[in-house]
């Protein structure tokens, strides 16, 4: 059955206006969490502090607060309630509902798509595409797109995990689990590599290398673009003719020292421990300027001096 039938049951005419899917675009960002607020806004005057905060923070981004949830339930009471301070600007709720309709009832429209309705409009598809763009739900809805922090505010009691379990897991955290940098268990271990003075960082998968040599070659390839100048000034030849410990030479010659931050948060010199141990404990890398590395890499400095 087409969706409109379900809405007709209540006797309310639903606004299925294929309004700006554009509205959908901006709204999709945090939409996943905004949906919580949308539903709750269905309760006029609902002013539990949680919701209020959420709404307040997102109002700026999405003034078209969706109110059709309320509309469906009890349109009469809305007018009487007079508690719509929360509804952005109050006025034009029809319009907003319409726009919001694109946001909220794209479900209906996509649901229509699900029914295989030939008449499924472009909006549904457009909204659908936008959903696709937002990628999998698992991606933090909103965080990547600069939505206000409220978009990530946790919903009480969701996901439905027993508080006993939550408390137990909190006191006994998954120790084997790597932090956000390492994707353990998937056969790759991406860590950030920063270089002092470089405009942006890189990420490398430590699992793709089996020893320091390969690793140093790869790093060198990645970062040579930033250090050509320095290389030149020290008279070190260009990137061709790769040799062992090239990175060490390259770095020691060019005032750079390769360091890493381990699990305990300490900055260590790369190369001291066996490769496996290094990949186990390394959380991020930093190619440090030699001048910062005093005391950290005395050998490097000596080599440097010896060369010159």
């Amino acid at each position, binding site marked *: *059955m087409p*969706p409109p039938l*379900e*809405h007709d*049951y*209540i006797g*309310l005419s639903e606004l299925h206006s294929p309004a700006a899917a554009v509205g959908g675009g901006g709204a999709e960002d945090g939409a*996943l969490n905004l*949906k*919580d607020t949308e*539903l*709750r806004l*269905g*309760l*006029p*005057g609902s*002013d539990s502090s949680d919701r209020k905060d959420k709404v307040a923070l997102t109002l700026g981004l999405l003034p078209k607060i969706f109110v059709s*949830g*309320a509309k*469906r*339930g*009890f349109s009469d*009471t809305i007018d009487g309630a007079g508690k719509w301070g929360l509804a952005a600007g109050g006025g034009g709720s029809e319009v907003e509902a319409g726009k919001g309709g694109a946001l909220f009832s794209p*479900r*209906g429209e*996509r*649901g229509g*798509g*699900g029914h295989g309705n030939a008449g499924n409009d472009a909006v549904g598809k457009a909204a*659908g*595409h936008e*959903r696709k763009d937002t990628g*999998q*739900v*698992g991606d933090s*809805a909103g965080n990547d797109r600069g939505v206000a922090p409220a978009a*990530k505010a*946790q*919903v009480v*009691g*969701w*996901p*439905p*995990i*027993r*508080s*006993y*379990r939550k408390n*137990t*897991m909190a006191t*006994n955290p*998954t*120790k*084997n*689990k*790597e932090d*956000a940098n390492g994707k*353990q*268990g*998937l056969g790759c271990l991406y860590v950030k590599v920063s270089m002092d003075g470089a405009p942006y960082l890189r990420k490398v998968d430590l699992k793709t290398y089996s020893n320091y040599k390969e690793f140093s070659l790869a790093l060198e390839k990645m970062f040579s673009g930033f250090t050509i100048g320095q290389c030149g000034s020290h008279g070190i030849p260009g990137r061709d003719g790769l040799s062992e410990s090239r990175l060490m030479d390259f770095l020691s010659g060019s005032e750079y020292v390769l360091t890493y931050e381990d699990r305990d948060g300490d900055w260590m010199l790369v190369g001291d421990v066996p490769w496996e141990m290094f990949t186990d404990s390394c959380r991020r890398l930093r190619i440090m300027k030699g001048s910062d590395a005093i005391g950290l890499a005395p050998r490097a400095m000596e080599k440097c001096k010896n060369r010159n």
Partner: protein
Amino acid sequence: MVRGFGWAAAFPDEVWEHVFSFLAADADRNAVALVCRAWHRIERRSRRRVFVGNCYAVAPAAAVRRFPEVRAAAIKGKPHFADFNLVPTDWGGGAEAWVEAMAEGWPHLEELRLKRMVVSDDCLELIARSFKNFGVLSLVSCDGFSTAGLAAIAANCRNLRELDLHENEVEDNCLNWISHFPESFTSLVSLNIACLEGDVNTSVLECLISRCPNLKTLRLNHAMPLEKLVSLLQRAPQLVDVGTSKFSADHHPELFSKLESTFAGFKHLKSLSGIWEAGPTYLPAIYSVCESLTSLNLCYATIQSPELLKFVSRCKNLQRLWVMDLIEDNGLIAVAASCKLLQELRVFPSDPYGVAPPISLTEHGLVAISAGCLMLHSVLYFCRQMTNAALLTIANNRPNLTCFRLCIIEPHTPDYISQEPLDAGFSAIVESCKDLRRLSLSGLLTDRVFKSIGASANRLEMLSVAFAGDSDAGLHYILSGCKNLRKLEIRDCPFGDKALLDNASKLETMRSLWMSSCSVTLGACRQLALKMPRLNVEVIDERRGRPLESWPDDFPVEKLYIYRTVAGPRSDTPPCVWTV
């Protein structure tokens, strides 16, 4: 044939009692009790087991009076959503009223099982003193008591067989409560203390275990170090059900071989749980028991996929598997290939609030299980993505599902490939699985799915709904369909007054209805309460201080709990709860 049923009156009561003793199901006994006064009398005097699904549905004294010969009672208190902090802590569910009535009227009580109730130490002491032949105490998801109360149980219940403490909040103020079991105490069959925080005196426990030859179940708590665990378990090779403590320690070859030989000594082990903080070091030591395991609970074990896979795929006879999503799709595919007798699967999230999902557990794992495990009938699955196609496949593979609880962690998540709502998928589940008794929905859902559920889910007894639906129609479909619905719990759905009022009489056929963050107004609650005097309509509102009477009809109800009762409004409502 003799006229009428007169000949039956000639049978002495004992004959009928004997006949009725073959009726295990409460529903059957209830039916029998309605036949005639004689049978009502005989049945009530011979009923030995009572199950009270809602502690406020009947007055304790009334229950005790009606069934004077009860030996085993099970009582449940708070609504299910109390598990997720949706119910105020002072809502109710106190056990005193029941324990007092039982102490008075059931002196021969042997078994007591309480779930989601507030049990005080005084209650425990009363239990310990009142029932001479007390044998089984099971407390699940309860709170309000401490180890001092447990000490009273230990000291006084001479014939205690089972002490089962499952996921309770227990205050630890009596460290040596275990030593309160007297030296003469030898009847223990089952001891589950997994939820206790504090250290338990190992040597005392060792003595206890040594003198209880019938001990079959031993579930220890997290705090015990591995070496102590090993020496403890060595004393009870007859164990059938073991819950270990911490399973990690620095590698000591000696400890490893001790662990190995201890577990090799378990000739009858069927059930294994605990294994908190397991590292790859010690897990191989217990490979020897894998083959015999029928139940494996690793839901707190933070073992990574490779080790997990190695372990679980050896458990060829597994019927129940509870595990974390660290098992990943690969692990589940291996389970599907190895564990052909699997009946129940629960997959818990290791990082439910995490931002990016580093765990590769998707719908594929569940689909693989549904294809490979022909006896699978119960599923609880936390994941982050789902498709209608996957649900359809699962529905087609496993029409024998009786419990399907899917939690897609992010609310409103659509089919990630087609971007459509998951209506079609869940509809397929209810249409295919004719014996489905429990269903939990998640993901993006419109009213359409409720239409399917209402129409097809004829055996459904419990339904959990969150962040779903478009309108009142959704609720109406459920309440006007689902013939056998007992418990309905809803949160954050746009369901409102009309559906509720139109289906008021349905609510009396159900145990309870929970609605929170929906679109119900106080006016509707008032109407409902007027219309249905045998329902308690409880409005829960923690925000306001003013009494309910002063609020207008259009006031939105934050949380609503409606349940049928013959006991009238309860007298122990806290300030945030009003019975309308």
